[in-house]
């Protein structure tokens, strides 16, 4: 199967979650695919499965033609080899590091990245330069969220998983960061799986909307 | 029935004193409560007012310490109760299978017998009574300087015995009584009694003890019948 013909996201997963069983199956050719659904529908669970943090009972996960998981073929790449940049809903900044060390944690993987995503550019675009030396415990909610976005962007990922990445941000920042995401989509061509409750965000960014639950 | 007396005794007397207590019980007395520990610990307990009736020390030093300790008008020892109860000998021992032969006299080749790396096990010199006597005897025989750096000072004379029994050291110095109870060691020779000060075990009644059983047991230990029990364990006469 050549990667040109392959869908950007080709996902078919089943996993027991909460009291029920979560099943989702879709193939999307859009660079940015939005996952929408009510709270508790299973959006985060799907991202976790794509990232390799939650193992599906059965199914298949391929991103840009690269198979990450296939229960039939016995493929299950470990998270560190899936190459995703994941902005977690609960952020998960490393509490024992400064903002700067958090941002650079995944940079090792990002050897030959285009200059769009250099540390200084990302910081400027996210408005977090003044915070670089701060311990992450002393950030406001929105500041922490921007650091989490920066960390994912700087990690040299092959694709991005965004779980409500703008939920704690003011409209102005939101707009700026959406612009940044569009540039990443257009200039770097990175596939993005995007979870959001915000209709405007989904409208503006996503080429395809997958409802869940 | 009478209340049993509490007897504090040096650890090395465990088997023999238990046997004597059995004999005392056979005479219709309550069994004395025997507490075995290092003489130093027991002596300190006494001078801090521990409620005991008799004290048997492994050496005179700690008995003197009790005798002279301050803190109680009239002292910690019941007047007129101190007696030297037993004596012991000092033995050079080797593991049972060892072919070593030595006769213990002035300048005997102890260091050579230890070989290039062997050590001489005994009680910690200067701390455990057996070690003190061993050093004294070796000094008087003129061999101390050649083995001073080769001593393995065990925590108790029985620990030294175990080192030799297990073949960790080729030779050791323990009391004759210790050598007698361990089949895995062989007595190479006994140190001449003149080579060290008399090894005596003093016994006293503790001041403040009101239990007549204590004094009764003390008299029994010092009696002919009592003494016989200890001779069977290799202790020497008074």
């Amino acid at each position, binding site marked *: 199967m050549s990667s040109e013909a392959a869908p950007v996201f080709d996902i078919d997963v089943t996993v027991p979650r909460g009291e029920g069983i979560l099943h989702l199956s879709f193939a999307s050719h859009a660079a940015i695919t939005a996952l929408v659904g009510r709270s508790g529908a299973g959006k985060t669970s799907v991202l976790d499965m794509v990232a390799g943090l939650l193992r599906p009972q059965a199914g298949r996960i391929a991103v840009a033609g690269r198979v990450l998981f296939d229960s039939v073929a016995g493929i299950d790449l470990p998270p560190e080899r899936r190459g995703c940049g994941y902005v977690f809903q609960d952020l998960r900044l490393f509490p024992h590091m400064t903002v700067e060390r958090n941002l650079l944690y995944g940079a090792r993987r990002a050897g030959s990245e285009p200059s769009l995503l250099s540390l200084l550019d990302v910081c400027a675009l996210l408005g977090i330069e003044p915070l670089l030396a701060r311990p992450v415990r002393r950030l406001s909610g929105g500041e922490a969220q921007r650091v989490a976005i920066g960390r994912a962007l700087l990690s040299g990922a092959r694709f991005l998983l965004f779980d409500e990445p703008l939920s704690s941000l003011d409209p102005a920042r939101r707009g700026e960061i959406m612009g940044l995401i569009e540039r990443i989509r257009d200039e770097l061509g990175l596939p993005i799986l995007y979870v959001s409750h915000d209709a405007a965000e989904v409208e503006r960014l996503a080429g395809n909307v997958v409802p869940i639950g | 029935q009478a209340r049993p007396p509490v007897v504090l005794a040096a650890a*090395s007397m*465990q088997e023999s004193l238990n046997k004597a207590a059995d004999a005392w019980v056979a005479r219709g007395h309550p069994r004395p409560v025997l507490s075995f520990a290092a003489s130093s610990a027991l002596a300190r307990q006494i001078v*801090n007012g521990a409620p005991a009736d008799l004290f048997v020390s492994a050496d005179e030093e700690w008995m003197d310490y009790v005798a002279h300790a301050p803190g109680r008008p009239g002292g910690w020892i019941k007047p007129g109760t101190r007696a030297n109860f037993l004596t012991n000998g000092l033995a050079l021992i080797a593991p049972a299978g060892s072919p070593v032969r030595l006769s213990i006299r002035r300048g005997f080749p102890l260091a050579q017998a230890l070989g290039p790396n062997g050590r001489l096990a005994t009680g910690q010199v200067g701390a455990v009574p057996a070690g003190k006597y061993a050093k004294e005897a070796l000094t008087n025989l003129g061999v101390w300087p050649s083995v001073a750096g080769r001593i393995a000072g065990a925590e108790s004379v*029985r620990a030294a015995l175990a080192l030799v029994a297990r073949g960790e050291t080729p030779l050791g110095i323990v009391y004759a009584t210790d050598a007698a*109870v*361990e*089949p895995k060691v062989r007595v190479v020779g006994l140190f001449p009694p003149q080579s060290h000060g008399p090894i005596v075990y003093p016994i006293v009644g503790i001041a403040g003890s009101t239990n007549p059983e204590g004094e009764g047991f003390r008299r029994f230990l010092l009696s002919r019948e009592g003494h016989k029990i200890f001779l069977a364990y290799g202790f020497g006469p008074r």
Partner: protein
Amino acid sequence: MASARAERMLTPEEWDIVVLSLKVSAVAIGGVAPVAFGCAWLLARGRFVGRVLLDALVHLPLVLPPVVTGWLLLLAFGAQGLVGRWLAEFGVSVMFRWTGAALASAVMAFPLMVRAMRLSIEAVDRRLESAARTLGAGRLRVFATITLPLAMPGVLAGMVLGFARSLGEFGATITFVSNIPGETETLPLAIYSALQIPGSETAVTRLALVSVALSLIALLVSEVLARKVGRTGVI
């Protein structure tokens, strides 16, 4: 049934020793745990001068050879000791009593308990405590419902460590309260006595195995409790 088998395996004297050891350890750990927790709390949360000194004091029984600790206890609780004289006014003496053995065990276990508890208290997220306070909980309720349950792994670990240490405690006990059969002769003292007699390896081994079995039971109990705490947040 298990106890019947144990009784068959152990002589009645040995059985008494086991019961005494359990009593001594249980009283020691139960009695000292609240003090240890208070101390751990102070060290974790207090910002007073002399904190490092208190810390050093807590570690003292660990740093000193046990016989020195026993000797110091003897000096303090003996007939002429400050505490000893004070206790004597109430007609209480711990000399040569099992209570003294429990005291020695408690002192020796103290630093281990404090350290484990302190680690867990320091790991408690203080934002949760402030959340509880906004919900109307006073300091005491916050402590009982948030801090203590969240620090429970450390409290349990501390109690297991302390109990194990107590089961092995020898030097301080024999120096402080001697080796009185039926009163202060706990398992380690009995084991030590047996070790002094050549050829007693089987007796030593049997008693040592009993110690190990007791600690295994304590570990299992603590695992079960820990799992229960993990599930429900309370013991």
